[in-house]
């Protein structure tokens, strides 16, 4: 039983780490601001879920579990709002999104 829990927890942790790295790569490699925000949101959601679930399995069911669940809840609550605020601010500043090939020149201008 302990072995299964341990294996599951490690699987979750590794999945979380992979997702986190994916998000980081996306944030660097994607072409413009909006797509980058999109990439980074992976780390806030599924990556956070996997890592915290993995940690819960590691810690066993104690007070720490409750705290971890709270962390997850607040993370899920706040990061979409923060992303929303970020994108909204960028939109209001007049940053054009990267659309199709003929619009891309404008996007490049807006970014620089």
């Amino acid at each position, binding site marked *: 039983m302990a072995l299964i829990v341990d294996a599951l927890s490690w699987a979750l942790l590794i999945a979380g780490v992979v997702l986190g790295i994916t998000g980081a790569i996306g944030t660097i490699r994607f072409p413009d601001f909006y797509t980058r925000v999109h990439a980074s949101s992976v780390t806030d959601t599924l990556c956070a879920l996997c890592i915290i679930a993995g940690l819960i399995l590691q810690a066993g069911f104690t007070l720490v579990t409750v705290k971890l669940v709270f962390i997850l809840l*607040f993370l899920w*609550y*706040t990061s979409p*709002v923060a992303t*929303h*605020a970020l994108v*909204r601010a960028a939109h209001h500043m007049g940053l054009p999104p990267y659309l199709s090939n003929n619009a891309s020149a404008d996007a490049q201008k807006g970014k620089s």
Partner: protein
Amino acid sequence: MIESLINIILFTMLAATSLAVVRLHNLFAITMLFGVYSLLSAVIFVELDAVDVAFTEAAVGAGISTMLILSTLVITGHHEKNPKHGPWLPLVVVILTGAVLAWGTLDMPLFGSLDNPIHQHVAPRYIQDSPEEIGIPNMVTSVLASYRGYDTMGEVVVVFAALIGVLALIGINEKKCAKRQYSSDERPPRPVLQVMSKLLIPYIMLFALYVQFHGDFGPGGGFQAGVIFAAAIILYTLTFSLDDAFDLISPRVLRPLAAIGVLIYGGTGIVTMLLGGTFLNYSVLAGDPKSGQHYGILAIEFGVGLTVATVMMLIFYAFVSRGEKGKVE
């Protein structure tokens, strides 16, 4: 082994981040990277067992400092001119100094060894006796509030002095804006943000109270609690408007509270003096020295929390009102 590896990796990341901060020219980007740098420092502090410090660094370095730099950039603009003179002279000075220093470290006591003199002389007393003498498990709080309580009072006065400086320099413009909050085009309503932060703010305040009163048992204390409480009001100001925040907590209320916080701390010391102890000797506050210590720490932590929270809010108000409403008349 794995601990040393984590340690080395984290420190290397910190060094890399600092280089990135220096090499960038957009001040907004520098500020955000500086926030990252602070968070990374906080992680290192956790890894080195300094949880209270990590908490403070995260709240102050990544939170308040970044916030203040951003609100300054709103006023000053965020493009750095290219420096006209070459970087060589400062670079040579810096590399030489660094080399001399690195040479000087070679016979430093090694990292992590229990035999180091730093762990031998004064520290064991705090570790072994403070749970008995003070009666609270968090040794950092014991040392902070009791053994070296006078330093902490100085720290509160430093915060107060910063407030005095900011008020002297930029002041808080309390004049109301002529109703532009929700109607004008440049500042449309923000339903998502406003609803969500309304839901969040009570929890932030609750957490601040928890940190304030749980500081004896876990990481936290007056300083961290004060910053978190101020963060709730800052969030409110950002999602609503400065005028709404002034209606909620007016600077006129906050100003005296900042002074009162310092006076609560000092007053505790005066009371202990009158009761026959030396300044800040809480043991005389009650018949039993241990409960005396408890009352004393409770009182001074409250003073710290009050001053820090009010000063942080006031400084934030000062910066934002300068940006939005211009000079104080």
